[in-house]
């Protein structure tokens, strides 16, 4: 029966990760409106509940009760498949993100389970995320095409070409990190950044490339061309209403949170924070081995969420600062600026690993 408790803890962790992802995506919609309002010297939603905190619920109720409309000329099954695919790919990504260190549980004296706070630790975590993100565009393409609307189709086509273009430089930016860490597992990469050894200090250029591509992959301003209201009405979701539209919008916010989590675990040390070892030592000496470890994990997880939420805020901050790119500017930036830069970054990283690192190591000796 001992393994059952460990399994239950694992199941609880998975459910928590899933639930928290959804909750954060839900409150990101509220956060977006508040941030937008504050940056425009307004107050934002404040009528539903204290400080408008029930606004996401009100929005959800509105979404559910609206008429669910399918255009008569639309391809019905694909029209339904589109938002489902979007939501599915958005939710699949959070499975491999390490939200925290590990939970220890002693089933019998001397027998300690060490359960990582992560749904699954695949040894190709980054590739998994990359693969699922590259599938995210299908939801948009299928939905946009199935709507049988020229604006939707234009939005879908834009989404496709934009995502393919920016995936390349995103992958190249990640390769520089992989060269440094030598591992495809996100947990490994996070563990190697222990002790203030964050990748952002080694890969500033890679970080800028990655975050730009993350904006483009999430279809966020300044790269929200697939749905730009001023040119394409609603882009790929012009014909959508009710909860199908809700799924599309919700998937965008989940993507935003997941990419923020990826940024903080790839470049900002994930659940590591300065002075972590000291805090951990204090906790284990005062609370005991297992309880101290678990509290330390909790603090690490909170730090991770703080970092991720900062980047969610950053997404919104940029959205309400920068205007949308023109389409040729977008393509020029992707193909003529970011890809060469990412390649230079790879060469520089390789050179640094080959020549600079032995030099520094011998100097320190």
């Amino acid at each position, binding site marked *: 029966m001992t393994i059952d408790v460990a399994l239950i803890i694992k199941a609880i962790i998975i459910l928590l990760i899933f639930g928290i992802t959804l909750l954060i995506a839900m409150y990101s919609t509220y956060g977006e409106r508040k941030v937008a309002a504050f940056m425009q010297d307004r107050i934002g939603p404040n009528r539903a509940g204290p400080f408008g905190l029930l606004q996401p619920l009100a929005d959800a109720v509105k979404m559910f009760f609206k008429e669910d409309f399918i255009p008569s000329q639309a391809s019905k099954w694909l029209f339904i498949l589109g938002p489902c695919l979007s939501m599915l790919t958005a939710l699949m990504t959070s499975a491999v993100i390490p939200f925290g260190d590990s939970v220890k549980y002693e089933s019998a004296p001397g027998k300690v389970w060490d359960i990582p706070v992560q749904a699954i630790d695949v*040894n*190709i975590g980054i590739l*998994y995320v990359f693969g699922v993100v*590259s*599938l995210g*565009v*299908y939801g948009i393409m299928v939905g946009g095409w199935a709507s049988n609307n020229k604006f939707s189709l234009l939005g879908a086509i834009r989404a496709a070409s934009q*995502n393919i273009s920016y*995936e390349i430089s995103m992958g190249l930016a990640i390769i520089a990190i992989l060269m440094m860490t030598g591992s495809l597992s996100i947990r490994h990469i996070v563990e190697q950044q222990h002790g203030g050894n964050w990748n952002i200090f080694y890969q500033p250029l890679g970080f800028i490339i990655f975050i730009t591509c993350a904006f483009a992959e999430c279809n966020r301003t300044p790269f929200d061309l697939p749905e730009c209201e001023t040119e394409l009405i609603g882009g790929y979701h012009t014909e959508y209403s009710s909860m199908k539209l809700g799924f599309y919008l919700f998937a965008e916010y989940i993507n935003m949170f997941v990419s923020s989590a990826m940024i903080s675990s790839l470049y900002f040390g994930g659940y590591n924070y300065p002075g972590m070892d000291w805090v951990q030592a204090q906790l284990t000496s005062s609370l005991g081995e297992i309880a101290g470890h678990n509290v330390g994990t909790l603090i690490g997880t909170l730090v991770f969420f703080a970092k991720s939420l900062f980047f969610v805020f950053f997404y919104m901050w940029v959205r309400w600062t920068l205007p949308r790119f023109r389409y040729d500017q977008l393509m020029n930036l992707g193909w003529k600026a970011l890809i060469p830069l990412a390649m230079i970054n790879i060469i520089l990283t390789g050179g640094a690993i080959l020549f600079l690192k032995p030099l520094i190591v011998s100097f320190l000796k």
Partner: protein
Amino acid sequence: MDFSSFLNNLTPATGFFYFLSFLTILTGLMVVLSKNPIHSVLYLIATFFCLSGHYVLLNAQFLAAVNIIVYAGAIMVLFLFVIMFLNLKQEDEESKTNLTKIAAMVTGGTLFLIFVAVFRKTQFGAFDAYSFDSQVGMVESLGEVLYKDYLLPFELASVLFLVAMIGAVMLGRREAGDRHF
């Protein structure tokens, strides 16, 4: 061995294998059989997913992920991208002539014959549980093979890609005084 005893002896892994194979063949057939090219492409994507499932069953996670990223994530997006530009309502009369039908029959039949011939000659290596290395499909061993044993073919292939890329750039290059938009 009758069907019920076959079912009883099914381990989860083999059961999953049969299920995946069934799905792969079904979606593969649907690629050919569906009238709408968009549906064909979507079925093809599903086929790639099934193939990735097979890779996972073979403990080749890297191949599975790369298959999805490259084929399902990039190439099929481009396929879909191009097909979306087609005017699907317009019947293409040229592809319906008897000549094209006969040509398609001949080429398809030849391909089928070749497959059958190859299949008959193939000898399947026996599975040896002792010499089998479960890590053979992992990234590390794949890298070792690619960059040690097959370095020259690998680099030649990358040069080929470079040539293709330069060719594409040359074709798409804007001439002096030429404006596309």
